[in-house]
């Protein structure tokens, strides 16, 4: 992945998040506070604007800028979590062109950042449940497999009982609904495929 491809990835995320904002909000209304779609739409619109005219020398520059902007503009739980993930990836990719393996390591660093900040375990019904299988699949079989694994991970959150984030307040009643954050993670990986 080179700088232009990194930009293209982020733009693709922005586009898909915009298109799916209502779905994300609907999912978040069921077990959260109904703002996940609006949050990410606002965030990635700001990222799009921030990257315009921004001089990026490395892939990491693009991703770090993305992360910093998300932190500055999103708020909520997903802002710091996704923001930290992109910042961690940016830190790991300090060159103009990176290999698939390097990107795999960076995705893993992103996951680690989310887990460190949010403290979620796999199975807690969060974005971790899409991000984790996606990173594993990426390393073994590349971006398409990663997208499929994220999607599957997101779907599988439906059966889980939430133990982190807002959905955890619902206890048993969180079961039967797909996690919005895991769903947006699937969009991030779909944009990479």
């Amino acid at each position, binding site marked *: 992945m080179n700088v232009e491809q990194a930009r293209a990835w982020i733009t693709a995320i922005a586009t898909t998040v915009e298109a799916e904002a209502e779905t994300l909000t609907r999912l978040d209304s069921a077990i959260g*506070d109904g*703002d996940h779609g609006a*949050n990410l739409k606002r965030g990635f619109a700001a990222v799009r604007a921030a990257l315009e005219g921004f001089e990026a020398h490395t892939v990491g520059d693009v991703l770090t800028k993305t992360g910093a902007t998300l932190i*500055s503009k999103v*708020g*909520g739980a997903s802002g710091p979590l996704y923001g930290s993930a992109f910042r961690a990836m940016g830190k790991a990719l300090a060159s103009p062109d990176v290999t698939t393996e390097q990107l795999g390591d960076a995705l893993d660093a992103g996951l680690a950042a989310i887990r460190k900040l949010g403290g979620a375990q796999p199975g807690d019904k969060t974005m971790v449940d899409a991000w984790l299988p996606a990173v594993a699949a990426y390393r073994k079989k590349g971006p398409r497999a990663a997208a499929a694994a994220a999607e599957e991970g997101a779907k599988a959150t439906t059966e889980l009982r939430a133990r982190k*984030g807002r959905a955890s307040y*619902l*206890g048993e*009643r969180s079961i039967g609904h797909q996690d919005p954050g895991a769903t947006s993670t699937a969009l991030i990986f779909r944009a990479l495929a």
Partner: protein
Amino acid sequence: MKKFINDPGDVVAQALRGLAAAHPELRVDPENQLVVRADAPVRGKVGIVSGGGSGHEPLHGGFVGPGMLDAACAGEVFTSPVPDAILAATRAVDGGAGVLHIVKNYTGDVLNFEMAAELAGDDDITVETVLVDDDVAVQDSTWTAGRRGTGATVIVEKVTGALAEERASLKDVAAIGRTVNERSGSFAVALTAATTPAAGRPGFDLPDDEMEVGVGIHGEPGRRRAPLAPAADVAALMVDAILEAKPATGTAIVLLNGLGGTPLLELYLLYGEVAALLESRDVRIGRSLVGNYVTSLDMAGASLTICHADDEILRLWDAWVRTPGLRRGV
């Protein structure tokens, strides 16, 4: 969606412009979604910053002023504010004695305030944090993100604000905030769901003969659904839940809070039931407050907060305060 707005994507900043027009005694920054007391930073005084998602008015912006908050950060509706705004507020109120962050316990609020506190540390501003988690409807923190911060936030903000006004140290101001939180329990019941401008429809569908029990203030459904009940039963349910989690000691400050869509007439009726029940349980009500203080947009419902106060807390609760939402003695 029936709301007095212009654009669902631009509600908070526009509302802050109205707050600025109505309260020239406050410094309002609609751009960065900050409300700051006009004379901040007050030299030698601990600065107090709170904030969270919007939609809970008068919390937090309505509690900015002498005797209470030095600044409030207004996030998007039901979305915690961003670290940049919290950092800007922290800088604006730092009078050299450190800054207290009052944070309601939600993952988003905790993470964003944490990041801001770290950044403030880089500026050599000492920050202490009081985490408010009074909602006893959320039970087991190994299974959840922990109890939510709701009605007790008002009491924490009032009491810490009063102590800071006396030039107490950051350590002491934070300590009394934590004491208030520990001694407080809250429980909410909703009759309808809130509609956010972004979603445009109620957060959940609730049949005409049911209510949400143990509901939060962000439009999320409650712990369980129950058949609609008379006010006396609703009061019993709230009082029982709170006293079980926070048994009575001392003299109670009781806040019966409307969630936004419930008329004051009903709040007073419900408060009458609560007061009678507390008396029958030998809880002495020392102070009370009935009205809309921590709302959830247009949600019909009410929350009860009981703070088992000591003399110091009562003294600080009674102290003068001058804010749009709470005013006394000035």
